[in-house]
């Protein structure tokens, strides 16, 4: 089932030092359309930094990013904004706009960035919120929503922009255990629907069942790369397997 199409995202030689410390030491990988790749690894490995370098929220010291074969000119503001509109990002702390209700949170980028008219933007926002199961909460403000609901709104907000790929930075790490499931099921639906995603997470069960490829990061480089069976099955003698079994002792699994 090898497809010879060019990868939808290609990342090459990303290097970043912060506060004198090298966080990312030449990271490269590529992502094909419809794939779900999962980044795992200990805290401080650079997973968050890598994701934020891909959409240049943190400008990398060195490296290149190609979207659909075209290199991203991060120095040109217009190109950068246009690129970011095609890349959805989900944050660990949700980062919903506090002064807007759920509906407005989803609609604002449609109106201000995509210049949609108010009624169209509203209709699209309502549709996206219903897709993540929050149609009845559209008039509530972030402070009135639970963590799981906030994260689902942020997913709706990202999806409303029709992104080509999604970057998810530990989307469930800030959630109470009982709320993790609702967010994972939305992400699962996205994956099954063919969305191209890179996900940094500690949710190993989820990774095992849905990832096309697992990338294990430590100290700023990708140490191991392979399918979930290769890296995570009980028989594998890999660093990844080591790391995951330690994790299993600390976390309860949410499938």
């Amino acid at each position, binding site marked *: 089932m090898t497809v010879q199409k060019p990868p939808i995202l290609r990342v090459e030689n990303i290097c970043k030092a912060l506060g004198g410390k090298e966080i990312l030491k030449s990271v490269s990988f590529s992502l094909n359309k419809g794939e779900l790749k999962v980044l795992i690894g200990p805290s401080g490995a650079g997973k968050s930094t890598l994701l*934020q370098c891909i*959409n240049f*929220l943190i400008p990398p010291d060195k490296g290149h990013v190609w979207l659909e074969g075209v290199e991203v000119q991060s120095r040109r*503001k217009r190109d950068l*904004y*246009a*690129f*970011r*509109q*095609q*890349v*959805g*990002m989900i*944050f660990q*702390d*949700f*980062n*919903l*706009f*506090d*002064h807007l209700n759920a509906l407005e949170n989803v609609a*604002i*980028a449609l109106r*201000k*960035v995509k210049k949609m008219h108010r009624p169209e933007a509203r209709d699209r926002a309502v549709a996206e919120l219903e897709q993540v199961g929050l149609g009845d909460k559209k008039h*509530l*403000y*972030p*402070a*009135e929503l639970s963590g799981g609901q906030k994260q689902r709104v*942020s997913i709706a*907000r*990202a999806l409303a*922009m029709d992104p080509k790929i999604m970057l998810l930075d530990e989307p469930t790490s800030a959630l109470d255990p009982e709320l993790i499931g609702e967010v994972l099921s939305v992400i699962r639906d996205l994956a099954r629907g063919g969305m191209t995603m890179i996900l940094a997470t500690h949710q190993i069960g989820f990774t095992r069942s849905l990832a096309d490829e697992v990338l294990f990061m430590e100290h700023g480089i990708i140490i191991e790369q392979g399918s979930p069976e290769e890296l995570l099955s009980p028989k594998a003698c890999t660093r990844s397997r080591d790391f995951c079994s330690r994790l299993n002792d600390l976390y309860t699994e949410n499938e």
Partner: protein
Amino acid sequence: MYEALAAVLEALPYLLKGALATSGIVIGAMGLGLVLGIHMAVGQVFGNFIIRRLIGLYVWFFRGVPVLVLLFLFYFGLFALIGLNLSAFAASTLVLGMTTAAYQSQIFRGAILSLPRGQLQAARALGMSDIKTIVNIILPQALRFSIPGWSNEYSIILKDSALAFVLGTSEIMARSHFVASRTYHYLPLYITAGCLYFFLTWIGVRALLKLEAKVRIPGYSH
């Protein structure tokens, strides 16, 4: 005693017209300060090194020199130098406006800096330009949180407006002094003036409290 009261009552309409002038000065100054202050705050937070330094210089100057000196400097000196012929009323409003802009810029700057970084990141991740982010995400929140500080600044400017009297502006202070020096009822007239200022402060602060309640974000505690 009774003639004092009579003198006050007789002067009241005249004084109230002065209150109108005072209100004009305050509204004009606070308005100018608001517009300038927001721009300076944004410049200080998001601008380059030169812009930050220039704004810092402006703030240092207008916060360090007494208002009285500024009024004299501009009205008798700088405005005349550049050929700007303003009435005492306009000049006082302009100078007070420039002064309060310096203070307001710091209030807004503090509010902007107190917002969580994530608000900025999420807006950028969605592809919003810096200007759109500032206008639609940062300022709506920062301005809400600035209301208490702004209310405080309002009461300060209201009191400073009394200094416009030294330039000859016919506001509360000028009019009270005018009547007092004719009737020699200094004490009751200045007490009346004080009450007028008090009342104007009270109205303004109440209005701003109502505004704060009206724009409050449901459920949110900063």
